[in-house]
């Protein structure tokens, strides 16, 4: 049962990734692309957790945690760049 | 999976090489990043591909992947981070000093290359 759910979950993540990539390709704005990147990062957290369940290990937890904690820094930096040019000012 | 990883590394290398051959500093920096991705995965993969066997000692573990390439890659990542930082700063400083971000520090004349 879990295997089936996992398979569906992986498929969902895969399809979601494809969607994000299409948005990344289409844009049209930089903000769209950064948004796609941000969503990809979120998907990555999900993917890592799914992998953890599939492999029955908690060893990937830190990776998910770091993405959750620091993933937004990239997004913020890109936005700050678009907004002000200077990321740190 | 081997074919995927090998071809992926190949693509990363090709892109990195192509970018390194561009005439402006920024794509070159990007190219170096790509080469660094490529070589990191390559070096990591020299321990062969193993799924679900992280090198963390656990009596219940069925086995471990080769930890040594991982340690080497960690070192390599760190070093290439330092190098990238330096090269980025150099690209910036060169531009501020020369007024051109061409890799040769001067705009190519009429010749279009």
């Amino acid at each position, binding site marked *: 049962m879990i295997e089936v759910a996992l398979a569906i979950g992986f498929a969902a993540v895969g399809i979601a990734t494809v969607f994000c990539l299409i948005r990344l390709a289409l844009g049209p704005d930089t903000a769209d692309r950064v948004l796609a990147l941000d969503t990809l990062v979120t998907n990555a957290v999900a993917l890592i957790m799914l992998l953890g369940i599939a492999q029955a290990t908690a060893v990937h937890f830190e990776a998910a945690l770091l993405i959750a904690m620091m993933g937004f820094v990239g997004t913020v930096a890109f936005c700050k760049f678009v907004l002000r040019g200077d990321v740190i000012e | 999976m081997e074919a995927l990883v090998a071809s992926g590394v190949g693509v990363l290398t090709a892109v990195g090489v192509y970018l390194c051959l561009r005439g402006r500093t920024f794509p070159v920096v990007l190219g170096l990043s790509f080469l660094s991705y490529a070589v990191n995965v390559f*070096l990591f993969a020299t321990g062969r591909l193993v799924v679900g066997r992280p090198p963390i000692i656990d009596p219940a573990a069925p086995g471990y992947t080769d930890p*040594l*390439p991982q340690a*080497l890659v960690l*070192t390599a990542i760190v070093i290439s981070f330092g*190098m990238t930082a330096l090269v980025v700063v*150099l690209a910036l400083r*060169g531009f501020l000093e020369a007024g051109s971000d061409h890799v040769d*520090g001067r705009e190519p004349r009429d010749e279009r290359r």
Partner: protein
Amino acid sequence: MTDWIIVPVVLPAAMAASIVLVARFDLALQRTLSLATTVFLLGVAVGLFLLARDGVPRPYLLGAWPAPFGIVLVLDRLSALMLVLTQLLALLVLLYAAAGWDRQGRHFHALFQFQLMGLNGAFLTGDVFNLFVFFEVLLIASYGLFLHGAGVRRLVGGFKYVTINLLASTLFLFAVGTIYAVTGTLNMADLALKAAQVGPEQAGLLRTGVALLLVVFAVKAALAPLHLWLPGTYGVAAPPVAALFAVMTKVGAYAILRVHLAVFGGAGSPAIGLVEPWVVPAALATLVLGTLGVLGARSLQRLAAYSVLASMGTLALVLAVPTSAATAAALYYLVHSTLAAAGLFLVGELVAERRGAMRDELVPAPPFPQLELLAAGFLLAALATAGLPPLSGFLGKIWILDALRGRSAWPWLWAAVLVTSLLTVLALARAGSLLFWKPAALAAPAADPPPPRPRPLVPLVATATLLALPVLLAGFAGPLAQELEATARQLYARQSYVEAVLGPSSPPAPLER
């Protein structure tokens, strides 16, 4: 006593950290610490050299982990020789630089000590991945030193220098990865042992990895066509830095000796016979291109930079020959060419800083102070560079000719060496007579001649000492040559190296050729 083996790495590292930590606002203190460290290091290097003379390679097991599992340093005659050469050069260059050059940018002394650490580490290590790490240490320190004083030429040149070296570093990792993927080891002694045991199905992979590593070292050694980075680097760096860099290309040469000729050169190794067919043509091209550069150079520093190239070409010709006789000749020339090039850089700068706006451009300029003295210095440096008697350049060259005798196409190699020597003589004669003999009509008399700046004595003394070294090398060529022969023999004594590092229990393998 073996604990001293790690000192040439650890001491400069600790000292550099201390300089950053406590002395970063106090240049005088930095100088004192830096000089004292370098003097001490020279002492240690000499001590290690004497220690290594008994002919037994000494492993130093870092972290007390047994080889090949941990990282091991190996002190043998070759590494000790390189240590002495490096510290000697470093001390003289540092003396020179401490008279004012170090003021032009930040962190000169810390970077300098880190540079020494990187060089020493690269010469001492017995582990290929650790060699990569120390290559990176010495490279990044060299980037820092290269950029010392900044300026547009250095910044733009710096980008190129860094880029090309990053490419080489990337290739280094590809190569090391491939080697590990086949042999499962990184320790050089272990590699020497295992290379012979790799089966035919993976021999090709190993050979590829080793060949790629050769390309990496060729980049460092600036062998054509991988040399294109050198003129813009050595010709642009602050002259004392360029002088120190004279030893950097030799790291590439050292690595080829250590890895390709010694480790992977043993019987049964799939990578045997790789060096000569690739390196000799490259060396010839380097020699020719370097000489053309010397002949066409517009400034003295450029000329010196190209002379480094030409000397690397000469060196590589004989370096590629995998016999202990040839290697001894290569080592002699290596030592000589390092000191000669450094001397030329320093003399060039002494001239440049006295010629005002003309700097070291090879155009007529008014006479300048201390002309006679510097002319004599230039003469010595030029003699050494061009390989004219009676200095070590000539001895090195005849030894090389001797060693090349009988290799394939040797008449051509001889012709190349001799003809390029002649062209170098021509170029240096032109440059010297232009700089020291041809007075320019004084430009419109300056209303206010600039006040005579105090000319510190120390740079002159440092340069003079450096220039005296080729004389000593020539004078004591005999005893030195004996040392070098022993060094070369030890390099090829693979069995004893393996036993020293891995212990005598390692199964006897047909390692000797």
